[in-house]
């Protein structure tokens, strides 16, 4: 079918392809620029947050480099090619999660790792963050929109299986992100508002049920601490009180780079990982936080543009879900550090120290680039 809508897009697309070298190597210039800025900002803030730890900085930089390479490689694959392998990846991923739950490697009281000494050590749940939206997108892209009840049920089952497996590890943060990634696909696919409102209404009984049957003691403690951090200022409330003090004492302009007392004197826990936004807020103030949020919003805006411009339904659903999940990262992390949300282990994307999440995130953006740069309008008609 050839209509105005398609023609407009194709002509624009052809124009750009000719103008840009980046387009030909399947790189989205805007995304790459924003990612590089964030990567630089990360090193800048990490230097302060880690107490001028150069080793740690080098590790983060090499993870970032590795992630960028991974991103560029992924961008070279056509989305169709990816779609072909999605079912297999889903089955494999769930299988690995089962393996982890049965015999995984222990870290911090939670079983999250698969560790083959000397060969590889990774968290299967991390891959699920990408496999999950891709699988749901693959499933729904074959159906007509909005999805019907039967398809919604199948999709929910596909979401619930890995979600429960990750929750059992237990890893509340990742499981919620995986859940969100799957649900966003349904949302973009046009899930009826009555279903959305119904699910929202069901949250309360589900939350109560989880409290009694699913949540571990340390997770319950986090929720209790969130509700009233002052109840145990030296114990579990310590983190949130100290991070709020760090943020609040930064004021509008901040104390200056390397001059944050809360982080440099070790009052702020996890200052270079999950709580790094508090270091930023302490040293660069409200202005620094707003600038970072601006960068994130630009990334998300670009992601939504890619979603809208995507050629295939699979591409649209996957791009939209990845972009929206990215926002969940940002919102949950900043919300928990500033005391709006309970403490769940979600890193601040691109800024927090940690190779695994960095590589996963960049892989997601590689998929976005792939979706955007492999559009073939001629074959569509």
């Amino acid at each position, binding site marked *: *079918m050839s*209509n105005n*809508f398609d023609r407009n897009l194709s002509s624009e697309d052809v124009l750009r392809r000719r103008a840009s070298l980046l387009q030909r190597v399947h790189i989205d210039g805007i995304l790459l620029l924003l990612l590089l800025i964030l990567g630089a900002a990360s090193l800048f803030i990490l230097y302060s947050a880690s107490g001028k730890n150069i080793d740690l900085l080098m590790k983060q930089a090499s993870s970032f480099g590795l992630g960028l390479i991974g991103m560029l490689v992924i961008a070279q694959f056509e989305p169709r090619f990816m779609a072909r392998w999605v079912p297999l990846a889903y089955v494999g991923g769930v299988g690995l999660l089962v393996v982890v739950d049965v015999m995984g490697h222990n870290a911090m009281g939670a079983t999250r790792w698969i560790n083959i000494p000397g060969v590889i050590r990774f968290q299967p749940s991390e891959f699920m963050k990408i496999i999950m939206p891709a699988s749901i997108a693959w499933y729904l892209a074959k*159906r*007509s*929109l*909005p999805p019907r009840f039967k398809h919604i049920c199948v999709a929910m089952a596909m979401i619930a299986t890995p979600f429960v497996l990750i929750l059992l590890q237990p890893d509340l943060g990742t499981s919620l992100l995986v859940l969100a990634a799957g649900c*966003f696909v349904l*949302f*973009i*696919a*046009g899930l009826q508002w009555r279903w959305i409102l119904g699910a929202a209404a069901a949250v309360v009984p589900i939350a109560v049920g989880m409290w009694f049957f699913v949540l571990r003691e340390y997770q319950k403690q986090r929720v209790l601490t969130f509700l009233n951090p002052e109840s145990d200022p030296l114990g579990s409330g310590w983190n949130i*009180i*100290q991070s*709020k*003090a*760090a*943020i*609040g*004492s*930064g*004021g*509008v302009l901040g104390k200056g780079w390397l001059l944050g*007392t*809360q982080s440099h*004197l*070790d*009052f702020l826990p996890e200052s270079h990982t999950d709580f790094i936004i508090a270091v930023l*807020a302490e040293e660069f*103030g*409200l202005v620094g*936080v*707003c600038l970072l*949020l601006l960068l*994130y*919003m630009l990334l*998300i*805006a670009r992601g*939504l543009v890619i*979603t*809208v411009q*995507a050629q295939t*339904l699979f591409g*649209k*659903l996957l791009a*939209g879900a990845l*972009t*929206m999940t990215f*926002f969940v990262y940002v*919102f949950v992390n*900043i*919300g928990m550090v*500033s*005391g*709006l949300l309970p403490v769940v282990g979600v890193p601040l994307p691109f800024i927090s120290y940690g190779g695994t999440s960095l590589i996963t995130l960049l892989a997601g953006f590689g998929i976005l680039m792939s979706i955007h740069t492999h559009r073939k309008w001629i074959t569509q008609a």
Partner: protein
Amino acid sequence: MPQPIRLKDHEKDARMVRKRALVGGIVFLLLTAVLIARMYYLQVVQFEYHSTLAENNRIHVQPVPPTRGLIFDRNGVIVADNRPSFSLTLTRERAGDWRQVLDVIVEVLGLSEEDRALFERRVRQGRRPFEPVPVLFELSEEQIARIAINQFRLPGVEVAAQLVRHYPLGDHFAHSVGYVGRINEKELSDLDPVAYSGTHHIGKTGIERFYEAQLHGEVGYEEVETNARGRVLRVLKRTDPLPGRDIVLTLDSRLQEAAEAALGGRRGAVVALQPQTGEVLAMVSQPSFDPNPFVTGIGFKAYADLRDSIDRPLFNRVLRGLYPPGSTIKPMVAVAGLDAGVITPQTRVFDPGFYQLPNHSHKYRNWNRNGDGWVDLELAISRSNDTYFYDLAHKMGVDRMHDYMTRFGLGQRVSLDMFEETAGLMPSRDWKRARYRQPWYPGETLILGIGQGYMQTTPLQLAQATALMATRGKWIRPHLAKTIEGLPAVDSDPVPDIQLRDPKFWDYGRFGMEQVVHGPRGTARKIGDGSPYRIAGKSGTAQVVAIKQGEKYDREKIQERHRDHALFVAFAPADNPQIVVSVMVENGESGSGVAAPVVKQVMDAWLLDENGQLKAEFAPPVKAEVVQREQ
């Protein structure tokens, strides 16, 4: 699914996705606005609150203990100073299982189970949270090295340098200067917690205790930046502490040592003071003890040894030793009798060797069984005739006796600045009624006249009573502090001088005392032989166990510890008193034979120069004194 519908769907799908992306974008913008609003609330609205919180986190106020004032003797010899010392401190809150940490310390330093118990007691006494408590003092270099090697096993343990009190002269001044020790819980509850916030030690006895307020100084403060583990990173602001005031003592360390030497290893007490000024020149209670271990905490066994020793080294005999004054108070009783008008200088009493109350058969014996015949006042003192003083006491009665002796300081605390001085006892009718619910018996008055019975006096009181003889009633409280930071000690509650009807009465008493040493029949004439200056003294014997009526004091039958205490009091030169000495030799038996030579030796050390001649500064102003004696 029918194919046509699917083909048609493409545009509709795109619209749907666009719509949902738009909804998502708007929701994200709203949520981002929520985040910014939250940040605005924390960073702008609550900025003050969180700034304060962050500042309080990092800034701690630490007390800086003041340096304790130094103590010198009258010649500037240092008696108490502060020495840098390394001690091992433990902070309970940082040690985790602190009992286990103590085990490691004991193991690393190779200490005993007893030490460990001591450490545990010290840690338990720890005060405010996060305050390092010293557990072991005066670490050797080897011990410091051992701790350093094992530091990883010793959380909360630090080697700290601090100033610790030290007494370079050891046991010479233990009973006068006293010592400081660790603040105990009872003291802690009475102390100003702010003033003592950095101080671990407090004066326990003696000068250290009495002048604690002056010696301690004022605490200073340091504002320090700490990290989350409480480690001090840098000092932001400092208010220096005000060091304690230095005290110069009236004591003379050379005379002190001479007095100790004069006792010659016997148990006893020596007090030497300047009668005109009340300055105590020497204060000896033997045996003594080394106060230094008490500063850092003496071990259980060492303390038990001191406490349980039969010689009682911890007992301050000068201030707390109570003895019947015996004949030493006869000169004062004589002066009292003259002033009360019950005798005149010419009054004579016949001594058959005993005294009997009218209508009583009981014989109050003179020490000389054979009797001294007719005795006047001068002979009564120089021969220490008991019969004369039985008669005098009987004539005076207990009430007047009590009043006069009280004015001489008996039964009173006489010192200005001595910690835990005992008042002793000067009995009266009221006292006996209250104490025993009995009336006063006339016979009890008689023995008061010779310083026996209920009377209880300290060597210091005897020295002061003798000083009053030397100064003719001028009351100056004996004191140990000559100056405090250059200012003389002030007596806020001076005792009124003793005013006699006729000041000449003093001279009859004094002349009698001079005859004790220099008279042909004087009891202590041995020490007067060849003395380059004249001494006025009086011997005395304090009974340890009472002798029954008709029984004779037989030294062979009496255990050494039950023998009488020997007393001797004196001042010299007799016509220009420069020094008063009071000596008590425990179980010494003979005042004139044992205690008097000690007095002489102390006086020689003070009055004579290296050639054995009276120092020029003590030479008597000849004229005035001669005139007085001839009257």
